[in-house]
């Protein structure tokens, strides 16, 4: 290394020093510490006591842990495909050249700006079993067939689907990304398809979706991470209890309760690392699958 290179390196390091310090203090240290704490009996109020893999072993036999994991995967498995399909469908509709399109786009994006807590309280009333607007409409349609609308948040069966429904309210961000990606689809391809006499469904299947695939890939990965970490909405709706009968105790809610309600920070750290590994594994799987199905123009 020449003198000049060494000097450049030093100056460069100096410039990024504030970031390095911030990273070390607020990200690297807590990350490292949480690995150590996950191997400890740690209550926050007392110094950690090393217990080896005891926390991980206990997790394997903790029924609430498995139930919260099941609830979370159930939620993600329903939410992710629905959110993806809905966001693409909305983006396609909002990409047609109808008059006043910018107004429609704004309207569909607006719910994404609603704070989670306000959203929770609003939906709590909308899904109220007896007076809610949703059940009012559903009962109008279903009662002639002798079927009653579900009681949503009071039912162990319907509480999770209710949360899926509420979460779908926030697909606006994904719609914006799809809309941007749709602008990149070359018009010539549609023109060529028109000349060949392709129907709209064929155009979507053979042109739009392949060219949207990088955006779909991005949204699926981000959606998966968000879905597996769902917290604020069920926490507000159930006051942190995850009821009825633990049907809405999601992974991060149980993690939070372990850390701050039961004062078992070490156990919560172990849970956090397991969730990290699950998300990492799933992301890698999606990434691998994307090699076949994601089409990068020019790539």
């Amino acid at each position, binding site marked *: 290394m020449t003198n000049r290179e060494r000097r450049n390196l030093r100056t460069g390091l100096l410039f990024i020093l504030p970031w390095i310090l911030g990273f070390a203090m607020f990200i690297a240290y807590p990350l490292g510490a949480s690995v150590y704490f996950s191997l400890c009996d740690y209550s*926050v*109020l007392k110094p950690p006591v090393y217990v080896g893999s005891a926390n991980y072993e206990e997790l394997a036999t903790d029924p609430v842990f498995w139930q919260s994991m099941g609830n979370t995967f159930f939620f993600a498995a329903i939410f992710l495909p629905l959110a993806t399909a809905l966001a693409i469908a909305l983006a396609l509709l909002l990409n047609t050249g109808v008059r006043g399109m910018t107004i429609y786009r704004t309207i569909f994006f607006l719910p994404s700006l609603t704070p989670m807590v306000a959203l929770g309280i609003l939906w*709590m009333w909308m899904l109220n*079993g007896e*007076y809610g607007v949703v059940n009012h409409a559903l009962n109008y349609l279903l009662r002639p067939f002798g079927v*009653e609308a579900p*009681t949503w948040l009071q039912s162990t069966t319907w509480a999770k689907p209710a949360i899926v429904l509420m979460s779908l309210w926030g697909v606006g961000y994904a719609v914006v990304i799809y809309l941007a990606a749709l602008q990149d689809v070359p018009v010539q391809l549609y023109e060529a398809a028109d000349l060949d006499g392709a129907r709209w469904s064929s155009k979507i299947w053979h042109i739009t979706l392949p060219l949207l695939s990088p955006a779909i890939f991005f949204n699926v990965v981000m959606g998966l991470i968000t879905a597996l970490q769902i917290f604020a909405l069920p926490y507000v709706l159930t006051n942190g209890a995850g009821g009825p009968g633990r049907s809405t105790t999601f992974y991060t809610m149980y993690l939070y309760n372990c850390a701050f309600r039961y004062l078992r920070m070490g156990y919560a750290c172990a849970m956090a690392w397991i969730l990290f590994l699950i998300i990492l594994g799933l992301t890698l799987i999606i990434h691998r699958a994307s090699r076949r199905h994601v089409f990068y123009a020019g790539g």
Partner: protein
Amino acid sequence: MRALQVLGLENSAYAGRALLAAGVALLLCGCQILIPQPQDEYVNGRIRITYWEKWTGFEGDAIKQVVNRFNEMQDRIYVDLITMSQIDQKALIAIAGGDPPDLVGLWSSGLPQFAEKRAVMPLAPFMERAGMRKEDFIQVFIDLNCYRGELYGLPTTPATMALHWNKRMFREAGLDPDRPPRTLAELDEMAARLTKYDAQGHLIQVGFSPGEPGWWPWAWGFWFGGELSNDNEITFDSPENLAAFRWIQSYTKRYGAAEMRRFQSGLSTNFASPQNAFFSEKVAMELQGVWTANFIHQYAPNLEWAAAPFPSAVPGMENVTIAECDCICIPVGTRHPDEAFEFMKFLCSQEGSEMLNMAQQKFTPLKKVSPAFIKNHPNEYIQLFIDLASSPHACHTPDLSIWFEYLDEIAAAFDLVRFGLDTPEHAVSQVQQRASVMWKRAEASIERREQAEGKATP
């Protein structure tokens, strides 16, 4: 580089040094901000005591009034009252971080956790120095502030629960509005007469429901003579607790699980609102606390109501109630524990306690009460709640450090039984089994920590 040239720092070596100096200065500034500085210890020459409390609204005004009175009556200590939400979690972080307030107002149910982790100070030496006696307080509120026999907090605002009933609905159902049920069987019978259905067979009004308001799912066993723990053992699968869960499910069977869920889902979860099920006359009888009268005055001033002890299932066992309280503690690591206790002493004196509890519309945890307090109290049933607190059947949360885990387990089982998704027998045995595992783990943890501490301080 142009900016550097302007500053006369065209030489890169100088520029590097200048940048380094600026970086170090920034870092020092950052440290100044990041590392908490102790607040001013003195206010106008008086020792400052920071006091974190959870109350807002009229309850917040009540404690402010007491703090102001204390600050006026002496010139050595200044109490700085700070109101906050989620006080237990914030206190936890502050204590762990070594910068706690001098006083903190906790809930009695959370006290064992703090005491077990030795995050709050034992109060016996302070009490002795100040000449205060535990015997001056109603016993159950001292019990709520003890962990394994040692006192860690003092009660500030106590509460007991009683049956509240709607006199108008009683009259309408052909019942004597001034005669509450005296046994649990009688309550069930009255509840049946007070329950109404619409033409389609949907519930529109219920006499009683164990799930409304559903705040004490863990406590129903008390009315059957049950306990949650005994001599450091979990006793949830006792025949009494099982009988309580069977009784809870009897209501599900009576109303039908789906119908009960539908009715329940229409009830507001917001207690302090006119939509409250009891205030809006959807439920005729409820187990509720001493605070209810105040909210009725606010949200349903025309409601005709009365209160009496909630009847028990065991013949001869009368005045069963749940007792709980807010408490005040001195966190470990405070700078002025003695001065902090001086304020506690005033707060728990007859003057301070009556001032606080009159304004909060509760009763005082002290045995001695001035006649004026009872006479002027806005809750006409206040004497009932005081009597309930002194009852030998005033029950409370157990002093277990795993209480919140145990409670969440009971709450989940309660939901399943209430919605007819589990049998009482299975639910009770599940709670017993899981809570016993938690308890063994917690005891092992205490032992392990004591060993580690023993090694650290030979």
